[in-house]
């Protein structure tokens, strides 16, 4: 049980990074970014690309990767964000200026998702890839908890990024302007806030975070072209559970979804194993997310932290 919970926290921290971006875009650009999952994958694959061209700089003690991963990750986050900005200029901005509805924007984002996924398949192929094939010994803790050193890094990096985004939104002028624009776009313009600049920053933050999440997922699991699409549903559910537009909602929602997926499927798996029923519960993780979403929508549609606006 405790081990499943820990696995849930690890998965939850990755989902959280994706959810923060989705919630920011939903709040400021008024649509659910269906391309978010494939940007997640693209970040992971771009990192793989840079790792391939960098010399071997060694690994951090105990981890399966070294400084090259950090540099590659930062470059990949930047490039993924640059791609997103490119699509904003050629696609989302013209649609915005024509007053396109959220539905149109979301469907266009779906198109962008396919573009990212096709690029990945074309360049890297459909097969599974790894950053490192090195085996790692998990550390054992009481209550049957096992944690690999890489996993400490994943959770630490995720929380560090959440903190950075929080401080940016809370302390910097642009961060405050982003919150102001999400509160009331017309008033933001009347106040002199450059809302196009706000949009650019929203993309940069949202997309570099999802790219980072993809990279962390690649370290924890493996790289597959469909990885981001598969995690998009839990990310959306985390946003809805937490309340659209709320940073803490994304964090709490992400953790709830991560833990619920791991715990419920794990517990049911043990139950079915005991009953000798041949079923692979891990395939049902998205179902857990959906059930949670339905419950939240029925009981508290504005989400845990939502204000119901």
């Amino acid at each position, binding site marked *: 049980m405790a081990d499943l919970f820990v696995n849930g926290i690890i998965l939850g921290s990755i989902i959280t990074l994706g959810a923060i971006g989705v919630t920011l875009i939903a709040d400021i650009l008024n649509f659910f970014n269906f391309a978010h999952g494939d940007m997640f994958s693209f970040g992971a694959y771009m990192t793989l690309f840079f790792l391939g061209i960098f010399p071997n700089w060694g690994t951090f003690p105990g981890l399966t990767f070294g400084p090259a991963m950090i540099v590659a990750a930062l470059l990949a986050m930047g490039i993924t964000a640059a791609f997103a900005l490119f699509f904003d200029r050629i696609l989302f901005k013209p649609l915005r200026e024509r007053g396109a509805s959220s539905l149109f924007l979301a469907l266009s984002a779906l198109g962008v998702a396919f573009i990212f996924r096709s690029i990945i398949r074309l360049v890297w192929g459909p097969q599974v890839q790894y950053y490192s094939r090195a085996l790692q010994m998990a550390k054992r803790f009481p209550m049957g908890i096992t944690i690999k050193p890489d996993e400490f890094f994943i959770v630490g990096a995720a929380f560090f990024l959440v903190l950075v985004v929080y401080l940016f939104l809370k302390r910097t002028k642009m961060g405050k302007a982003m919150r*102001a624009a999400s*509160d009331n776009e017309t008033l933001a*313009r*009347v106040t*002199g806030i450059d809302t196009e600049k706000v949009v650019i920053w929203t993309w940069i933050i949202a997309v570099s975070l999802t790219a980072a999440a993809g990279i962390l997922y690649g370290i924890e699991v493996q790289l597959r072209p469909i990885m981001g699409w598969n995690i998009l549903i839990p990310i959306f559910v985390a946003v809805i559970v937490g309340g659209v537009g709320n940073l803490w909602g994304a964090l709490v929602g992400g953790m709830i979804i991560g833990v619920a997926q791991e715990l419920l499927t794990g517990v049911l798996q043990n139950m079915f194993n005991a009953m000798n029923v041949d079923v692979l519960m891990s395939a049902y993780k998205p179902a857990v997310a959906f059930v949670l979403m339905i419950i939240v929508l029925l009981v508290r549609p504005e989400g845990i932290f939502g204000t119901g606006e």
Partner: protein
Amino acid sequence: MSLLEIENLSAGYGPEVDVLHGISLDLNEGELLAVVGPNGAGKTTLLRTVSGVLHPSSGRITLKEKDITNYGPEEIIKMGLSFVPQDQHIFPSLTVKENLEMGAYTLKGDQGERMEEIFSIFPQLQSRLGQQAGSMSGGQQQMVAVGRGLMIQPEILLLDEPTAGLQPSLVKMMLDKVREINKLGVSVLLVAQTLEALELSERAYLLSAGEIVLSGKTEELIEEDKVQDLYFGSSRTEEGEGR
């Protein structure tokens, strides 16, 4: 030369649905000008157009002898014109301090000194700097909104019914503040909902169905039947246009 000049302005919310039909109006330096009129007359549309939120379908707006007809709000505020809308006039999830900071978004550097000046007008805000603006009472929110509008040290302040929804004691306080702000040298264009608000002004325009039907010195205008109708119902006129 007037500070703000509006000539033959038509504007609205879409093609061929103009709310304003050829309005001409001017605001002189240091003046407190009122615009009055029944609901739906186009008062808010006028302020939204002047501040750049809406683009006019025809006509001309000149600010400090510069044609700003098709400027966006981001550019107009930089020219010293600040707009405080009637509702949705604050950033509810931001603190009072952050609301004021956003008011000075177009300015560089620390605005601590300017904030002190705002506190001298609205001392109540000083002790509530860290409070979320959305959690405040209507009167306090109005102070935040006007304070935000004053942060850029505007030459012109557009106020859309700043006393709407306030309890009577606060209405008087807010109107005193408007007078105080005007005395500090800010030219004010006030959409006045009440007779007290109208009485603050030196000159006024009566807007009805998107057209200016009367204008002149406030003391003379108040005596007009159409203005009396607006505030006291139709008792004084025989036809009784009603409100």
